[in-house]
């Protein structure tokens, strides 16, 4: 894929950051509003797709030197391990818990183990989607 259109590339550079912000926003808003791990991960992955469309693979790989297979594996591991964490505390597998903390400046903040679980989900989604796209485009180009 060698689309060298200056316009697309310049726009992508800006848009990617907007998409990334959106992804992170969606990830954290998932608890109380639409969003969550899946959508967050997918949006994040789609920013990579956009980058792949705008630049060629080598540039993207050089810019983000991450093995996305490992990211996916890490995500799946986090998901399973958070489940096991509950077992350590004598609860059933995958029991989630939450607590509201009063942190100065930020006010009341609810922290929940679901967030870690969702982080694992997001990482897996990102890892898998990017792995799929990358391996196909590597093969065809």
């Amino acid at each position: 894929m060698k689309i060298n259109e200056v316009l697309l590339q310049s726009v992508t550079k800006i848009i990617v950051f907007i998409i990334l912000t959106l992804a992170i926003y969606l990830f954290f808003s998932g608890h109380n509003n639409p969003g969550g791990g899946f959508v967050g991960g997918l949006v994040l992955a789609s920013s990579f797709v956009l980058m792949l469309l705008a630049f060629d693979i080598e540039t993207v790989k050089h810019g983000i030197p991450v093995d996305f297979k490992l990211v996916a594996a890490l995500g799946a591991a986090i998901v399973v391990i958070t489940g096991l964490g509950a077992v350590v505390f004598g609860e059933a597998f995958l029991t989630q818990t939450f607590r509201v903390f009063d942190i100065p400046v930020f006010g009341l903040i609810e922290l929940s183990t679901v967030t870690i679980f969702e982080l694992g989900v997001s990482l897996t989604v990102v890892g898998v989607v990017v792995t799929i796209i990358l391996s196909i485009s590597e093969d065809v180009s």
Partner: protein
Amino acid sequence: METLIIIVAGVLVTSATYLILSQNLIRVILGTGVLTHAVHLLIMAMGGFSGNVVPIIGEKGNTYADALPQALILTSIVINFAVAAFFLVLAYQVYNRMNTDDLSKLRRYYHE
């Protein structure tokens, strides 16, 4: 509303079945995609609708849309994506190696 959704799903199922029965590998894959859409609509319809409410607590009083079908479908959408990608790559590799995407030709290839 439910009846309409079910009928839409029924049409999609018919279309998907016809696609799946075809000779062309890509059409089969497209067919499975359409079938998934139909099933999502079916699950939604089975859950029933409750008007202008969303499954988010704190919005508009005390009634909420049924969240369980939505959660099931959310899972299904993502899995469907993974499986569709797998099918696609399979088809792609099949074409790469055997130079055809015609299922009956593939069958003959296997037999020779």
